């Protein structure tokens, strides 16, 4: 659908990066979580622009519907919702920025200097049916392993976050159950 970078791509990319930047820079943790959601939504729209409908909707469902809520719950449960009065960056922030900048420089350099990819094939005909069939045939082993991982994560998260009395189990269950 999108060959040549359209206006839609640039707008979405802008929102995605702006959301990520806001998440990095804002003081209030809840604001960070909300701007993180903007990034998630932007990435989902980028997936849709890449004709990956199923992945885009899965991204929305899992990240906006579950992970963002989970993060917000965790922030409120750890009483981090107010703006912190002390500095928000670690003492070694300069090194962190330097490493991140170096990584970005490396990635961008390799992207720009690499051989231009082909113009791309026509939009692939990927239906949910074909994804389901692939999941159930070629990728059945990874699927089962992911199922086990999710179950283990579900139980693990419940046990880790559980009170001794066993009554704080409501919110962690949901992230894993998606």
């Amino acid at each position: 659908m999108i060959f040549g970078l359209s206006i839609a791509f640039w707008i979405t990319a802008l929102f995605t990066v702006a959301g990520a930047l806001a998440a990095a820079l804002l003081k209030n943790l809840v604001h960070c979580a909300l701007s993180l959601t903007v990034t998630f939504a932007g990435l989902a729209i980028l997936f849709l622009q890449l004709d990956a409908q199923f992945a885009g909707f899965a991204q929305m469902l899992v990240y906006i519907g579950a992970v963002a809520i989970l993060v917000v719950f965790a922030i409120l449960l750890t009483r981090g919702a107010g703006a912190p009065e002390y500095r928000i960056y670690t003492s070694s922030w300069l090194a962190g920025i330097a490493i991140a900048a170096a990584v970005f420089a490396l990635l961008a350099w390799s992207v720009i200097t690499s051989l231009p990819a082909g113009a791309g094939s026509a939009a692939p005909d990927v239906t949910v049916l074909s994804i389901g069939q692939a999941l159930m045939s070629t990728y059945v082993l990874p699927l089962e392993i992911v199922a086990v991982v999710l179950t283990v994560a579900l139980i693990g998260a419940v046990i880790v976050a559980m009170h001794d009395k066993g009554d704080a189990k409501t919110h962690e269950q949901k992230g894993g159950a998606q």
Partner: protein
Amino acid sequence: MNFQALTLPEKLDQLFVFVQHWIMGFFPAHWQPLVGALVGVVGIVASFPAIFALTTVLERKGLGRMQNRLGPNRVGPLGIFQPVADGIKSLTKEDIVPVSADGVVHFLAPVVLVVAIFLGYASLPIGRNMVLVNIDAGLLFFFAVGASTELSIFMAGWSSRNKYSLLGAMRAVAQMISYEVPLLMSAIVAVMMTGSLSTVKIVEAQSGFTGIFPHWYVFTPWGFAGFVLFVIAALAETNRTPFDLPEGESELVAGYFTEYSGFKFALFFLGEYLGMMSIAGFGITLFLGGWGAPFSFLNFIPSWAWFFLKLLAALCFFIWLRGTLPRLRQDQLMNFAWKFMLPMTLLNLMVAAAWRFLGDSATGAWLRWVLCAGVLLLAYVGLGRVLMRKQRLGARSYRYAE
């Protein structure tokens, strides 16, 4: 398709499709897809809020009658212009934002809610050939978009800096996430039978008739169970009675929109009813044959009329429930979700799979009917007994804040 060649019922059926094409004809070919989409969007944005207005009157009058009152009857004949008066009032009311509120988030919350809910209508088939975007993963799109309403509710509750708002929002989010699992699981049986996530294909799979009776999924054991579970989960998802704890006015003033007034409050109100209508619309699509007629001899009535009639019936049922049931307690709510809804939906998935593989032959048809209905009924009675005896749905347990 040639409009002239169709019979009168077919003309009526495709009326709005032809209007859309007629409007599109005024524009150059390059612009036509955009214009067509815009016309569809305008249609949805105009028609569903109109039904919302109608629903508010129906709800207030219906609830009144259930309590042996008259309900609103002042504005216009029999009070049918009440929503106009309500709209004018909420538009002209002062918009109050608490001093300590987080202004930007407070403003964005109702907007995000209404936008997300309107997006969900995109893949809802409201008539033959009447769906805004016919995408392959239409149902997934609805659930994906619906998931973002939770965040907007959290935004509303958190940004108000009010303990009632925050408590209401946390209740709403916990409830919506808990019931999203059974909602998805109960919807999946219809997807399993159709073999597609496309809402249009799901409706088409139910459009046949045996004698005069339609092939709706609700007329099968797994379909009926799925439908009931879907309705319960949908009630919880839209914060309707008996699952309206987030707005429990006796304890939380008005829940997450306590600090909203004027037009923003109206947006929340609109969002709530639009969410109710979209989820009812998807329930109709999944289990009640979408825009299909309930009897084969009623096929001459336009498909969109059937959809809206079913939608109105569903809304009336929601109102009826609201007039009947008291509010659940938080522990009952959570126990019901995880100890009743989840096992039942999982079992229903297995029953649907068994139904699919028992086949359609003459002997198999009877066998699978008895088997599937028996398993579901047994599970329902058994699970109900266990939960009632252990009083999981009744015992009071206390939790204290740390």
